[in-house]
C-alpha cells in the first residue's frame, strides 16, 4: 500500500510512518478492545495513513459511521470517536453518549480530534452534559497527508473559502505547522519563495516558528532546495477551465456521474466490468458492488497515463495493449525449460498488467460515453477547428465542445468585453448553474473584471432563471474576486497572457513539449510562475508579478553549519510547491511534466490545502439559504 510513496525523489513514506506512530500511540492509550466511530469525512485521509490491519493490531474490533441515535451494540471496552472539530458533530456524539445503555456493559468513551482540538467543541460537549463522560480527549495532528510519491494534501475542504471569503486564517496556521513538521523530517528548506497575501502570511509564521525552536535545530541534510508558496487567488483562471487530463476526467466522471469518489479510489459501475470479471482478479467484490480501483502511482499503468491529455489516451492504451500481448506471445518462443521457467516467473506481473489495462480501457470508454470521443483537434492556420468523429449527433457532446470553444475564446481574449451569446443560451436553457458561474467568472477573470452593465446583466439573468436565493452566492464570488466590475479601463490580462505565454497555439497533446498540453493550449498561470522561477527567475517578470494580487518575496533560512548541500554535477534541484487554497489535477500533471523534462533541472513535490476541480471549488463558495 505504501510502497509507491518511497519511489519518488523524496521519500514521503517517512512522513506516513511518523503519522502512523502517533496513531498507534493514541490507540495504546485506551487499553483493551475498542470500536472506532468515524466522522465519514475522515475515513479517506485515514485510509492513506493506516489500513484496518494496523487498527486491528491495536485491538480495534469494530468500526461504525458517526450518526445520531444509539450506538450499535459491540462488546468492546472502549468507544473512540474520530472526528473533525465541528459543532454539529459534537451534538451527534452527545446523542450517542446519552443514549448509551448504562446498566448494560459500561463502555469508556474517548474523542480524537483531527487535526486540532477546539475549545468551542469542548464547550459544546460540556453544555450537552457529556464532557465528564469522556475519558480521553486528544488531538491527532494530521496536517499534510501523503497522497502519492510527489503529492501531499491537507484535505481541508473549506480552506479557500475561509482564507479569501471569511478572512479566517486557521488553515494557514495549520499549513505553517505542517511545513514545520515536514522540515523536522526532511531538513530545513533553505529558500522560500512566495506570491500572494496568504503565502506571505504562511512564510512569516514559518520563520517565526523557526526562531522559536532555534534551540532544537534538526541535523538533517535538507532534502528540499526550495519552497514555493502560491496563493490560489493569483491564478483564479486555471481551476475554472475544463480539465482535460485523464485523471481529471476520471475523477470528474466518477464524482459527477456516479456520485462516489473515495479520495484515492474510484468506484465504477459493475456492469462495465462484468465481461472481464474472469480474467481480472477474482476479488472480494461482489458482482453487485461497484468496482473499486486505487488511483495512485502504485498502479503502474495508471501512473503512466493519468497526466496525459485525454486526447492521447486512446493511443497510449493501444500501445500498451500491443506490448502486453507481445509479451504473452513470447510463450510460443519459449523452447527450453529455462525459458519456460522465466516466462512463468513473469506471468503474475503480466497478468496484473493485463487486468489493469482492461480496467483502464473500460474506463476510457466510459468517459467517451460522456464526451463521445469528440476531441480530435485540428489546427488550421492558427484557428481551431473541432472535428467530430461521431456516428450520430449527440447534444451532450456538442455542448461539451461548445463549452470548450467558449473557454478557449475567453482565454485567448476574444470578445471578453461583450455579453456572450453562448452563456446567454445556456442560461435560457437552464444548464447547470455551476457551469454558468464557471463561464461568467472565467470571462470576468480574462477581462480583468466586467463592465458594470454586463456584470449586472449576467447577475440578473442568473437570479431570474435560477432563483433569487443565489444572490448570496453572487455576493461571495464578488468578494473573492472571481466576479468583479471593471474598475480601470485597462485590462491587463492580455499582457499577462503574452508575457507568461499562457496560450500556446501549437499544443501537442500526444507528445507534449510544453505544459500547455494539459488544457490543449492553455498553460496554467500558476505553473508558468513556477517554471519561470526555476529559470530564468522572477526578476524577468517583475512587471507581471505586480499585476497579480499580493506581494512576492524571497526568504532564506539559515542552515546549521555542515549541512550545506554540495550538488553533484547534473543533479536536479528539488522544489516543494505549496498551493494555498487548492490545486487541480491539471496543474499537478503539468508539474509532473516539468519534473520529467530532461533539461528541466528541477523536480517538483506538490502540496496543497485541498485537491480541487472547478466544480467542487465553485460549490465551496456557494451559499444557499435553507427554507424552513
Amino acid at each position, binding site marked *: 500500500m505504501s510502497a509507491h510513496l518511497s519511489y519518488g525523489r523524496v521519500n514521503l513514506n517517512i512522513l506516513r510512518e511518523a503519522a502512523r506512530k502517533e496513531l498507534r500511540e493514541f490507540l495504546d492509550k485506551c487499553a483493551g478492545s475498542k470500536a472506532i466511530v468515524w466522522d465519514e469525512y475522515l475515513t479517506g485521509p485515514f485510509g492513506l495513513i493506516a489500513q484496518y490491519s494496523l487498527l486491528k493490531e491495536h485491538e480495534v474490533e469494530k468500526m461504525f459511521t458517526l450518526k445520531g441515535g444509539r450506538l450499535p451494540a459491540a462488546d468492546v471496552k472502549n468507544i473512540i470517536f474520530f472526528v473533525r472539530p465541528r*459543532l454539529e458533530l459534537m451534538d451527534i456524539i452527545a446523542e450517542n453518549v446519552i443514549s448509551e445503555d448504562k446498566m448494560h456493559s459500561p463502555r469508556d468513551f474517548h474523542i480524537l480530534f483531527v487535526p*486540532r*482540538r*477546539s*475549545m*468551542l467543541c469542548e*464547550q459544546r460537549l460540556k453544555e450537552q452534559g457529556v464532557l465528564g463522560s469522556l475519558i480521553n480527549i486528544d*488531538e491527532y495532528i494530521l496536517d499534510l497527508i501523503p497522497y502519492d510519491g510527489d503529492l501531499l494534501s491537507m484535505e481541508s475542504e473549506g480552506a479557500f473559502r475561509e482564507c479569501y471569503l*471569511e*478572512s*479566517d*486564517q*486557521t488553515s*494557514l*496556521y495549520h499549513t*505553517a505547522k505542517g511545513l514545520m513538521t515536514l522540515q523536522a523530517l526532511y531538513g530545513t528548506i533553505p529558500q522560500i519563495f512566495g506570491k500572494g497575501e496568504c503565502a506571505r502570511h504562511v512564510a*512569516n*509564521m514559518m520563520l*517565526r*516558528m523557526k*526562531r*522559536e525552536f532555534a534551540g532544537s535545530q534538526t541535523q538533517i541534510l535538507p532534502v528540499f532546495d526550495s519552497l514555493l508558496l502560491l496563493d490560489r487567488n493569483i491564478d483564479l483562471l486555471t481551476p475554472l477551465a475544463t480539465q482535460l487530463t485523464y485523471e481529471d476526467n476520471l475523477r470528474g466522471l466518477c464524482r459527477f456521474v456516479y456520485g462516489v469518489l473515495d479520495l484515492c479510489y474510484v468506484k465504477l459501475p459493475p456492469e462495465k466490468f462484468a465481461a472481464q470479471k474472469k480474467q481480472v482478479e477474482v476479488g472480494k467484490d461482489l458482482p453487485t458492488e461497484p468496482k473499486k480501483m486505487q488511483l495512485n502511482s502504485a498502479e503502474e499503468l495508471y501512473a503512466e497515463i493519468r497526466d496525459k491529455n485525454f486526447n492521447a489516451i486512446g493511443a497510449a492504451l493501444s500501445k500498451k495493449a500491443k506490448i502486453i500481448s507481445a509479451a504473452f506471445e513470447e510463450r510460443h518462443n519459449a523452447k527450453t525449460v529455462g525459458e519456460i521457467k522465466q516466462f512463468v516467473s513473469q506471468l503474475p506481473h503480466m497478468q496484473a498488467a493485463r487486468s489493469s489495462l482492461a480496467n483502464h480501457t473500460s474506463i476510457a470508454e466510459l468517459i467517451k460515453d460522456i464526451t463521445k470521443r469528440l476531441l480530435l483537434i485540428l489546427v488550421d492556420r492558427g484557428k481551431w*477547428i473541432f*472535428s*467530430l*468523429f*461521431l*456516428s*450520430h*449527433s449527440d*447534444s451532450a457532446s456538442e455542448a461539451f465542445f461548445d463549452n470548450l470553444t467558449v473557454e478557449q475564446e475567453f482565454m485567448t481574449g476574444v470578445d471578453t468585453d461583450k455579453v456572450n451569446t453562448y452563456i*446567454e*443560451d445556456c*442560461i*435560457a*436553457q*437552464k444548464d447547470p448553474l455551476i457551469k454558468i458561474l464557471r463561464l461568467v467568472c472565467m470571462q470576468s477573470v480574462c477581462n480583468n473584471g466586467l463592465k458594470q452593465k454586463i456584470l*449586472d446583466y449576467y*447577475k*440578473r*439573468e442568473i*437570479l*431570474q*432563471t*435560477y*432563483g*433569487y*436565493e443565489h*444572490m*448570496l452566492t453572487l*455576493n461571495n464570488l464578488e468578494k473573492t474576486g472571481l466576479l468583479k466590475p471593471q474598475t480601470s479601463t485597462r485590462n491587463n490580462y492580455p499582457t499577462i497572457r503574452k508575457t507568461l505565454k499562457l496560450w500556446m497555439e501549437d499544443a501537442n497533446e500526444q507528445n507534449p513539449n510544453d505544459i500547455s498540453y494539459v488544457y490543449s493550449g492553455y498553460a496554467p498561470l500558476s505553473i508558468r510562475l513556477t517554471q519561470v522561477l526555476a529559470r530564468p527567475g522572477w526578476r524577468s517578470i517583475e512587471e507581471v508579478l505586480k499585476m497579480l494580487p499580493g506581494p512576492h518575496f524571497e526568504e532564506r533560512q539559515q542552515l546549521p553549519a555542515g549541512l550545506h548541500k554540495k550538488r553533484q554535477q547534473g543533479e536536479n534541484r528539488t522544489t516543494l510547491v505549496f498551493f494555498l487554497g487548492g490545486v487541480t489535477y491539471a496543474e499537478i500533471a503539468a508539474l509532473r511534466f516539468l519534473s520529467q523534462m530532461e533539461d528541466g533541472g528541477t523536480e517538483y513535490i506538490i502540496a496543497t490545502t485541498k485537491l480541487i476541480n472547478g466544480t467542487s471549488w465553485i460549490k465551496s463558495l456557494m451559499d444557499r*439559504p*435553507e*427554507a*424552513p
Partner: protein
Amino acid sequence: MAFITANWNPLGEAFYRKIELYEMGWSLRDGLKDCLVAAAPYGGPIGDARPQLEIYSSSGTNMASFPWKSGPVRQLGWTVCDDLLCIQEDGTVLIYDLFGAFKRHFSMGNEVVQNQMLEAKVFHSPYGTGVAIVTGASRFTLATNIDDLKLRRLPEVPGLQGAPSCWAVLTQDRQTKVLLANGADLYILDNTSCTPVTPPGLSPQACSIVNMAVSFSYKYLALFTDSGHLWMGSANLKDKLSEVDTKVRTPPKQMVWCRRPKSQQPSVVIMWDRLLLVAGERQHKYTLDEESVCVAELDGVRIVGGSRHELLQEVPSACQDIFKIASMAPGALLLEAHKEYDKSSQKADEYLREIKEQSVLGEAVRQCVEAAGYEHEPETQKTLLRAASFGKCFLSNYPPEPFVSMCRDLKVLNAVRDYTVGIPLTHTQYKQMTVQVLIDRLVYRKLYPLAIEICRYLKTPEYQGVSRVLKHWACAFCQTGVNFLDDMGPIMSGENQTLHSTVRTSYQRSMVTYLKNEMNRGDFFMTLRNQPVALSLYRQFCKHQEQDTLKDLFNQDDDHQELGNFYVKASYKEKKLEARLSLLQSAVDEYNKAKNEFAAKATEEEMKLLRFQRRLDEEKGEALLGLSLQETLHALLTSNFHKQAEQLYRDFRVPDKRYWWLKLTALAEKDDWEEMEKFAKSKKSPIGYLPFVEVCVKQHNKYEAKKYVSKVTPEQKVKAHLAIGDLEGAAEAAIDRRSEGEISTVLSRCSPTTDRALLERLNRARSTASKK
C-alpha cells in the same frame, strides 16, 4: 559539603535549620519598621502599605508601588489567587492585582460601618479566601469566600468588651468558626452558638491567653499565656501534645506553627522584637538582627526581614539520615561511596560492598533522591542526584521514574526560585500546589515565556499547558487595550515573539470566546473593531452560534451590505409570506444604504414576484410561491396562462431571447404544435429557427421539425438537416457552402450503407474546399 549541618540546630529528636532564600532586593529606609506587611503563602508576593502601597516579589523586586489615597488600611492579606486585599476601618475591602491594578471592592456590612473594625484576619480554606472582622461592638462578621460573598454575623460573646485578647479562624467539620480568648476564657463561635471550651492540661498559672496560632492544616492549635507557657494540642481541643515554659512573659509579636507534614514533632515559632524561639518538646533561640515578619508555610516558616528572607524548617528525615554526623544510613554510605569514586579511590568499593551486603542499595538510592528534593542549593542537589545515579548502576530493575521526575521537578523549582522570579517554593509545597497552579501563578505574574518553557519541558499536554498560557497572554494584551493582533509585532520583542505567531491563529478563537464572556458587549465590540482578524473569527462564531449577535455586529460597523445579506438569509427562514416580505424590505433598505443598486433592485423584484405568485396561487390554485421567475413563467406557459406569462415577461423585462427559448420549450413539452407554429410566425425569432428544429427533434417529432428547417439561416442549415437525420439535405447544404469543416462533419456521419454517389460528391467537394 562539610558545612551542610552547620546551620542545623537540634530540638529534641529533630533538627531545625534556617536557610537563606534571598538577600532582599528592596531598599527600605527603616527596614520593616512601622510597616503593615502581608506575605502570601507558597512563596507568594509581599504587600506593604503605609503610606505608600508597595508590592514586592519574595526576593524583594518591586512589582507595584503607588501612594495610598483611600481611607487608612488596617489589614492586608492575600487571596489564594494572589490578589491583594486591603481592609479599611469601615470594613471596605479593596482588591488589587499583583501589579497594583484595582480590581474591585466590597463591604463587610453595615454593622462594620457603624461600629468600625477593631481587627481583621484574612484566612484560606477549601472554599477560597475569607475575611473575618471583629468590630467595636465586639461582634464578629465573617465572609468565607470573597468571590461568593455571603456575610455572616456570629452570635454575641458573653462578657466580651472591646477586642478579645486574641483570636483565630478555624475550619472544622466543613464549617468556619472563630476561636477567641477573653482573658483566661476560651470560646468557640460558630453560626449559631458561642461555646466555652477548655484546653486539656493548660497550665493553671495562666490568667490570660495572649496569643494563639492555628496550623496551616487547621489540625493543631497553639496557645500562649501571660505566664509564658506555650500549650500545643489538637485544634479540636481534645488532645494536648506538649506544653513548654518559655520563661518569657512579654506577649509575642507573632506566633506561627512550624511543622512539616507527618512529622512527630510539634513545634511553634514565636517571635518577639529581636528574639525568635522555636519551641517543641525543647526550645531553641535565635536572635534577630532586624524587624521581621513570619509567614506560615505547609512545611516551615519563612522569615522576611529588611535585608534577608529565610526559611526555617525541620530538617527532613531523609536529609538527617544522610548528612547527620557519623550517620551510617544507606544513603549516607552511598554518598560517601560516590565521593570516593570521584576521587578514584578504592574505598568507593568498600562502601558499596557494605551497602550491598545489607541489601539496602535501593533504599540508599531512594534516600539520596528524596533528600535532593529537600535541598535548596543546586550544588547539593547535584551531588545527591549523582550519588543516586551512581547507585542505580549497580541495581537491576530499579524503576527510573522517581529519579527522572525528581530531576524534572528540581529543574522547575530552581527556575522559579531564581531571584528574578522570586517564588521560593519547597518541593513539598510544589507537590501540594501542583504544576497547574504554579503555571497559573507564573501567568498571573506575566512570566509567560517561563510558563511556556516549563509546560514544554514537562511535556504538559498542549491544551492544558502552552495553549492555556497563550490564551491568558492574549487576553492580558487585549484587556490592556493594546491592539494585540495587528500591532503586536513591534510590542512583542525578544522572547515574547514566541507567542506571537501562535496566538494570531487558532488561539484567537478561544480568546475571542473568552473575552466575549468576560467583557460587556459594548466594550467587546469596540475592542474587536480594530482587530480585523479577530472580528472575522467572531463573525464565524456568530454565524454558527448566535445569529442575532451577528446582526448587532454588522450594525455597529455600519456594514450595510452584510446586513442586507443577513436579512435575505433570515427571510428564507420565515414561513409566513408577510414576515418574509418585511425582512426583504429591510434588506432593500440596507442595500440602498450600501449603495448597492443592483441588489436593492433585484430584491424589490423578488418581492414583486412573490406577491404576484401569491395572487395567482390564491386565484388559480397554482403552486408557484418560491419558484424563480423562469420557473414561474414555465409553469404558467405549460398551464395555458399565456396572458399572465406575457404580463410577467413585460413587467420583469425578460430578454426576448430567453423568453423565446422558454416559450418554445414549454410548448414542445406539452406537444402544442399548433401554438408553436403560431408563435414561430408571430414575429422574427430572436433566437433563429435552429432551436425550433432541435426542440422538436428532442420531443421525437421530426415531422414538425422539418417545418422549420427551411427557415434556418444558411450557416445552420447543415446542423438542422443533420438534426432531422436528412443526410442528403445536409450534404447539399455543406457542398453549397463549400466549407471543409462542415463537409467533414457530414462525412463523419455517413455509414457503409450511405449512397456511394453522395459519398463521392462529398469527398470531391472536400478536396476542392481544402485546396481553396
